[in-house]
């Protein structure tokens, strides 16, 4: 049986490489799941959660800030700007950056800020916190 091979790379390192059952990706026009023998697809994805289902193991979750995915001949290549495994997320740091982004957006008329950047930071922080709060318990066995 041919396997479904997944590789997740970011600019700073290769974060995951191995065979998987499926992967769920927060695609640009809707979240989608890739199983074996999926049709070739190239899609961008946004800030959200990548879920990787593994054989005989608990699924792994990654917080990502966007990127592209290519599926071809049972090979999945995820090129992400950043990915963070659930276990590596620092909840306190995420909460701090959430506060910071909120503060910036609230004072947008006072300070000279890059609104798009602050909004992206807000979305990233929210994403991390949501991920941790949702899955922390069932993966920290």
């Amino acid at each position, binding site marked *: 049986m041919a396997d479904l091979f997944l590789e997740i790379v970011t600019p700073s390192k290769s974060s995951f490489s191995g065979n998987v059952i499926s992967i769920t990706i927060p*695609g640009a026009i809707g979240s989608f799941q890739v199983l074996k023998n999926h049709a070739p697809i190239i899609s961008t994805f946004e800030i959200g959660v990548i879920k990787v289902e593994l054989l005989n193991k608990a699924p792994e979750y990654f917080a990502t800030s966007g990127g592209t995915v290519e599926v071809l001949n049972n090979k999945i290549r995820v*090129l992400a700007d950043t990915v963070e495994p659930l276990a590596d997320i620092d909840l306190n740091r995420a909460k701090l950056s959430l506060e910071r982004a909120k503060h910036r957006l609230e004072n947008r008329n006072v300070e000279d800020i890059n609104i798009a950047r602050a909004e992206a930071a807000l979305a990233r922080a929210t994403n991390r916190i949501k991920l941790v709060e949702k899955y922390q318990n069932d993966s920290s066995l």
Partner: protein
Amino acid sequence: MATLRDIKGRIKGVQSTQKITKAMKMVAAAKLRRAQEAIVNARPYARQIFELLSHLATEDDLANNPYLKNKEVKNVAIVVVTADRGLCGAFNANIIKEANRYIKEELGGNANVSIFGVGKKGYEFFSKRDFKISGKKTGIFSSLRYDYSLEIIDEIIKGYLNDSFQKVIIIYNEFKSIIQQKIVVEQFLPIPVKLIAENISYPVALPNYIFEPDQKYIFNYLLPKHLKAQMWRILLESNAAEFGAQMTAMDNATTNAKELIRTLQLKYNKERQAAITKEILEIVSGANALKSA
């Protein structure tokens, strides 16, 4: 003539300098190893994003995409990548020299040239002279992060798309080996079409990809990412090359110090022997004078 004490003082001084250069060499060696690892880690992403781009490129894109299309060149931006600090031999000087040569020979003077300084040394050189500065990013090499690459590219893309310059050349040190850096002059924008065209690995029809949202969008989404990955690679290369150059420079300094200490030590010994001989002579001739009296 130097007295014994003077020479001893100098030996001490050179010895402590030698200790410092030795330590700096070891620090550079440790940092170099990390920098090399970073390059290796950055490779898969840069390669794959480029492959993906090549899969996606269409004839139309190659001819008309703003990042790929050759425009009439009125102004050229030169990105000069140097280190933030010295003490690394001719590392920075070589880049500056090459940039000057390029401006003079290939572009015929600095009238339509602006400099984008990455790294303090190069920026300082050009900002003090008669050059237009289109941007700078300094003090980044002490703790290199991917964000810096994003910031540099965002600024370059902005200038490129609003027509401040129509061509971007980048000059940097490539890491060949610990003792060897290669100066590279590359056209950064427009992205040389040849590069992508050469890499289109589908003489056979493209597999029937589903595109979400669509091919054009993804292509345009990936191009800036490709540039960022490129810039990141260049920063890492330059960083590793800097440590390599620093290591070599400090190694040379240590060897020189050793040689200097040897010469001084020899001089010291000779002086000491001369002093002893002189004293003995004095005593003997004194004794002789007493005897004959």
